[in-house]
């Protein structure tokens, strides 16, 4: 009896001790939890203060097995389905496994925390442990991949870049399935914090060009980048020149072509175009369709584009100089024809030409701003009615209308829109100098143009490189395109690494 009593007493004492220990442990964790809770409340209050009046920034408190978890996310950047599938359902069912999917972040680094929220990440704050995790749930609505309106081709792939940098990268990566295709991310823009990515082929690219480009991008100090052409103007070699020194395109096949040639491509989030550097002047007249066509067609079209550029800056100035200063240059019948059509015009040729050039510019600008429904009618009214009426009223001669229309069409031949804009600007310089001193003024302006083009650089290399070809094979792919078997695909300008 006594022994039984002793046994029971020791057992009761042991169990009392256990409950005491358990209680003390529980009180310890309780204390810790209280401290953590206080700290999380403090941090959450600070986040709320930073994001005050950002009404699409949501806080939700979820009760889980691991205690209370505050979920913070930006409603406009995250799709609701993604939130349910990636965050709420796992959180409410197996909260302790969230650690395997999410990454940890320091809750005291307020700047990083705010940047993560405004970039579309979801933050999970575990109150009891004072641990802040984030999951990448960035899924804003994006445009689907369509064909490009400005750079369309008849043959070849029709997809073009969209505004999402990830979609653009996927379009490039599915064409170049090579681990050597590297891309480095940067964040630029002090107000917009835009993502950009430098893409290149590691085994082909020249590392000096890469370092130069990186230095230039890191030196850029501009608040808001709405499009990649703003970045382009800030990192160009000669920003004062009217000519573009880097290539901009929206076609992924052109980009993959340039990447395998050893050039460097820059992509920007929210920007449809991509930048290619370094490039030469002749490549501004090359369309990727030239490589899909056969070599005879391709050579013909390239020569047309290239000489079209020089024709468009020469036709109307030649009209001005021939009629004002050197009428003896024209053959007799043509001169009679011209004088007949100019017989009613009261202005000297230069005013006539400037007048109609400006009318065409106004038509072009207005046509691009007008809504589509009104634009067609106004286009017909402007083009046909004003043109015919002006000729009949005697304000301009009808030969001039033909010349100006041809030169306007020719100015749209270069595949890059920036180059066509430049040729329009250069044409005015030529018209004015032809109006001042005839052919002499035109040739002086031409000398200036040559001197200017020869002084331009693209990422440190001369812009007019095929004039002094670095490799003889460069000439095979300039104004005339040789058959594909002869083309060595690494142009001299990229100074690619030799294998």
């Amino acid at each position, binding site marked *: 009896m006594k022994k039984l009593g002793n046994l029971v007493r020791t057992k009761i004492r042991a169990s009392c001790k256990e409950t005491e220990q358990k209680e003390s442990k529980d009180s310890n964790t309780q204390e810790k939890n209280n401290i953590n809770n206080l700290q999380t409340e403090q941090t959450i209050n600070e986040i709320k203060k930073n994001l005050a009046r950002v009404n699409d920034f949501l806080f939700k408190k979820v009760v889980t097995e691991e205690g209370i978890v505050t979920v913070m996310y930006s409603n406009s950047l995250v799709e609701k389905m993604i939130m349910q599938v990636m965050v709420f359902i796992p959180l409410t069912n197996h909260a302790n496994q969230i650690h395997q999917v999410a990454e940890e972040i320091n809750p005291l680094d307020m700047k990083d925390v705010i940047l993560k929220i405004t970039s579309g990440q979801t933050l999970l704050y575990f109150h009891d442990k004072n641990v802040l995790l984030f999951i990448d749930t960035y899924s804003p609505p994006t445009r689907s991949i369509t064909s490009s309106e400005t750079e369309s081709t008849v043959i070849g792939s029709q997809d073009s870049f969209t505004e999402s940098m990830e979609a653009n990268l996927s379009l490039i990566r599915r064409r170049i399935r090579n681990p050597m295709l590297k891309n480095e991310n940067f964040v630029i823009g002090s107000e917009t914090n835009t993502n950009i990515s430098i893409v290149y082929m590691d085994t082909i690219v020249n590392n000096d060009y890469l370092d130069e480009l990186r230095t230039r991008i890191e030196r850029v100090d501009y608040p808001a980048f709405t499009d990649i052409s703003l970045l382009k103007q800030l990192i160009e070699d000669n920003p004062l020149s009217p000519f573009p020194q880097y290539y901009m395109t929206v076609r992924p096949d052109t980009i993959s072509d340039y990447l395998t040639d050893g050039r460097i491509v820059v992509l920007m989030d929210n920007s449809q175009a991509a930048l290619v550097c370094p490039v030469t002047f002749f490549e501004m007249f090359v369309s990727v369709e030239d490589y899909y066509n056969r070599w005879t067609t391709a050579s013909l079209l390239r020569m047309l584009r290239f000489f079209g550029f020089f024709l468009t800056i020469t036709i109307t100035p030649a009209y001005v100089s021939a009629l004002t200063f050197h009428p003896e240059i024209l053959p007799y019948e043509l001169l009679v024809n011209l004088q007949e059509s100019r017989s009613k015009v009261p202005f000297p040729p230069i005013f006539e030409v400037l007048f109609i050039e400006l009318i065409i510019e106004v038509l072009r600008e207005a046509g691009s701003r007008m809504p589509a429904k009104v634009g067609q009618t106004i286009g017909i009214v402007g083009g046909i009615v004003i043109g015919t009426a002006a000729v009949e009223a005697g304000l301009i001669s009808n030969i001039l209308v033909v010349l100006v229309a041809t030169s306007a069409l020719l100015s749209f031949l270069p595949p890059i829109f920036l180059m066509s804009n430049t040729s329009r600007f250069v044409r005015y310089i030529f018209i004015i100098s032809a109006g001042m001193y005839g052919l002499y003024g035109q040739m*002086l302006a031409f000398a200036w143009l040559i*001197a200017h083009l020869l002084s331009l650089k693209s990422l440190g290399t001369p812009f007019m490189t095929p004039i002094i070809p670095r490799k003889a094979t460069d000439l095979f792919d300039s104004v005339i395109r040789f058959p594909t078997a002869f083309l060595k695909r690494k142009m001299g300008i990229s100074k690619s690494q030799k294998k």
Partner: protein
Amino acid sequence: MSGKKSPVLNRFHVIFLTQNIMFGTGILSLPQKLSSLGYSQALFPLLFGVIACLTLWPIIWINSKYENDNLFRINEKLLGKWLGKSINLLIVAVYIIFLSSVINNYTTLIQTSALPEQSMVVPLIMLLLVLVYIVNGGITSIARFCMMTFFLIFPTIFFLRWAIEKGEVTHLFPLFNFNGKEALEAMKKGYLSMLGYELIMFYYPYIANKKKAFKYTTIGIWITVLLYFITVLVSVMYFSKWQLENVEYSVLHLLKAGELPFIERIDIFVITLWVLAILATASAYLWTAKKGLESLRNKKKSSHVYILTLVVLLFEWMPLNPGFQEKFYEINYNIYYGILGWPIVLCVVHLLKKKRVRP
């Protein structure tokens, strides 16, 4: 000049630089200058080529002894500071006056043929502005401009084909129908069109492959000589003796023989195209004079180019009668011939100095 890196001229740069500095207004009146020889002037450009190569050799030799110095520094090193600097000043003055004579010739030509009834003040200023723009780019920009000029002007050779059709080959024979006095007169007048290859003394430090500089310069000289030879040949075939002596700018009349369906007078087009060749020549001389001014004052300033351009402009506007201006330019040409022979003097001085150092 071209930033921190030193500019480097590869072989194409050197060839076309040499060629274009020589090729300027000289060719347009070349048949007239050689006219004392009559019809046998056809071979004289080749003789000029030989003389040019012979005088080129001491130039390259003295430059190869002082690899990184242009002629201004070599003068100072060999002749001492004061004598060297005064010779440098003379060279700068000669080049500036030569430059203004070239531009003056050209603007007179434009005024008489392409732009009658216009004062040439503003066109001259426009030309000088473009000139300053090219020179500010440094010697590489000038060399590249020379290359483009060559490819743009070279096709005008094809306009000579109508003159060949209308000319008579029998004018060419007999070949050596002149005496010594006529030959000397022709050489004195005609060699002006060959001046310009000696500017290699000033851009030699920038050449990449200095050992082959002689070869490249010779190629440049012979390209120009070939062009002159073809022109003189065709003009001998086309013109009569009286025309050769009395027609100024006879090469332009050669071009008038051309018949194209859509342009009547090609010569106006070619004259205005010639502004590129003038700019190529003038920019090299202006660059050399700028380098000279820098070495005289031992300072590099961007205002040097503008000062020199103003001096050129003053020469154009000098209120002197044209006869005096012509004489002034004649004296200048004679001094210029002296500069051609100057490297031989320098070679002798260099050899004497070496002999003095050894013992």
